[in-house]
């Protein structure tokens, strides 16, 4: 459909959650905004393929998610950037304790496999239905459900239960938790 005023406004209205999704996925504010920008350009260039009346946010999230995945394949995530950089994007700096808790959560989220992280964010934070999340990720609804469940269990193990060392820490994780598995 053509780029009408109302469609333009709808796209604009989706930008804040697109950014939140991009930052949650990439853990890097600068890269997230590049992703959003590329998403918007792609969306506008392909606006003719958008079906009027269908779910615009889901369409935009699909574009962003696919961009992120193809980018990811090219270069691994820059883990060392994930923590400090993200906190800087916050307008309201949380108090020290809340901040620590926040960093812990962010770090744990970054340890999830990408499939699980994106499923959890789409369902648990973006508020998409399992069906929409499945269509965004191009997989079955049951797959999304199981990814979300595994993501939750893993986060719980990392954050609230001692001895999550069987998670299989990579070098960065090992440095963060200051010990090795086993």
């Amino acid at each position: 459909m053509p780029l009408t005023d109302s469609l333009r406004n709808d796209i604009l209205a989706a930008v804040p959650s697109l950014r939140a999704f991009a930052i949650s996925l990439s853990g890097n504010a600068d890269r997230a905004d590049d992703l959003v920008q590329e998403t918007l350009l792609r969306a506008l260039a392909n606006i003719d393929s958008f079906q009027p009346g269908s779910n615009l946010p889901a369409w935009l999230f699909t574009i962003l998610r696919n961009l992120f995945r193809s980018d990811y394949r090219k270069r691994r995530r820059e883990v060392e950037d994930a923590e400090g950089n993200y906190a800087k994007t916050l307008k309201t700096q949380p108090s020290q304790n809340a901040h620590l808790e926040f960093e812990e959560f962010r770090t744990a989220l970054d340890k999830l496999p990408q499939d699980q992280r994106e499923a959890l964010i789409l369902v648990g934070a973006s508020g998409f239905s399992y069906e929409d999340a499945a269509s965004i990720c191009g997989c079955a609804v049951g797959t999304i459900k199981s990814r979300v469940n595994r993501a939750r269990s893993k986060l719980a193990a990392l954050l609230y239960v001692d001895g999550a060392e069987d998670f299989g820490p990579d070098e960065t994780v090992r440095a963060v938790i200051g010990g090795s598995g086993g």
Partner: protein
Amino acid sequence: MKDLKSQASRSTTPGKGGLTPEIQSRIGHQLRAMYDDVVRQGVPDRFAELIKKLDAPGATPHVENEGGSNDNNGRD
């Protein structure tokens, strides 16, 4: 990607610290707090402008690097 997957299945330890409703809601709360912090920032100017520019008939997307972010070294 493959290594992530095998890691995922290996690390699923059923029963360990089972997911109580309390822990579930705590995770949900933190997840949304993190997400909504960004959502509340609204639409940064660069995106508002980008979409506005495309308003004019015949306009072509003009990608620009606003703000001259100084930590872009080595990107692309």
